[in-house]
């Protein structure tokens, strides 16, 4: 079974295996709940419409990145900038980013190839819990005090978590292999 999986992975790539498994799971569930099919399609349509503009922005960034090449100020910052500066950049980037995180992975990988560590990327992932456009709604539900404390704690912990992951990575050999 593992050998078949390995062969398939080498031939078509892991991403296609993931899609095939997801489609199979989806079809099996639909088979048992045929009446839910229109609603599921509606969910898929809604999510796709929501992520499409963000996907466009991500790939526009990637296009510009590729077009600018390696000799520009931003690339220099990513490869030569200090750890704290890059950390602040990724936290800020995390806060302003919107949409689901899996859309941003491709761009994050590109940034990693240009000099960011994965541990900067974990700060990005953590800082995403702070959603500035959602502030008015959050204040309406939980009050200004809670919203401010919530955002402040998350901002601090995004930095702490990134440093902790970095520390673990440097000191546990198993993670580096």
């Amino acid at each position, binding site marked *: 079974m593992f050998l078949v999986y390995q062969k398939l992975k080498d031939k078509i*790539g892991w*991403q296609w295996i993931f899609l095939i498994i997801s489609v199979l*799971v989806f079809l099996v569930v639909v088979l048992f709940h045929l009446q839910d099919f229109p609603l599921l399609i509606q969910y898929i349509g809604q999510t796709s419409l929501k992520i499409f503009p963000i996907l466009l922005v991500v790939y526009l960034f990637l296009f510009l990145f590729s077009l600018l090449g390696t000799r520009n100020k931003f690339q220099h910052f990513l490869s030569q900038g200090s750890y704290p500066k890059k950390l602040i950049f990724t936290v800020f980037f995390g806060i302003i980013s919107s949409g689901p995180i899996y859309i941003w992975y491709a761009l994050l990988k590109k940034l990693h190839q240009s000099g960011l560590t994965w541990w900067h990327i974990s700060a990005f992932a953590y800082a995403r819990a702070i959603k500035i456009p959602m502030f008015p709604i959050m204040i309406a539900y*939980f009050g200004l005090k809670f919203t401010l404390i919530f955002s*402040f704690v998350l901002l601090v912990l995004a930095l702490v978590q990134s440093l902790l992951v970095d520390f673990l990575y440097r000191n546990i050999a198993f993670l580096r292999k």
Partner: protein
Amino acid sequence: MIKQDFRQKIHKSRKQTLNGLLNNLPIILGVILLLALFQKYISFDFLTQMQNHHFAVLLANVLWSISAWNPVTSYIIASEMGNIEIYGFLISVFLIARVTVGIIQIPAESFYFGKKYAILRNLLAFLFAFLAGYLIYLLYHIF
């Protein structure tokens, strides 16, 4: 000459970007399909009716980490959990885990960053959701 060079560069960059998109599309589509199933079949309403709120916090963290609903939905459910003065911890854990941890997204995260990184990051984010929840609860009562 410069114009032609630039044109070639644009063509190369466009090709690279489209290849990247084609490579990533199966992952995005797979996650969308699985999320549709979660949106339809997983409901967390029962958490608001639970008597043991410590257990509910743990459960909230686990369940939210496998879901990916939009922020407004999570605000509505979290606000129904109870008074912020008393259940601030539960509500905070709920809101944080939803965004920072994603079990459904682990295959995608592993594809880009490697399995070890994906598991370590999600595990830490899961634990940090509790720490953050407690700090928020504490600070809320101090100020």
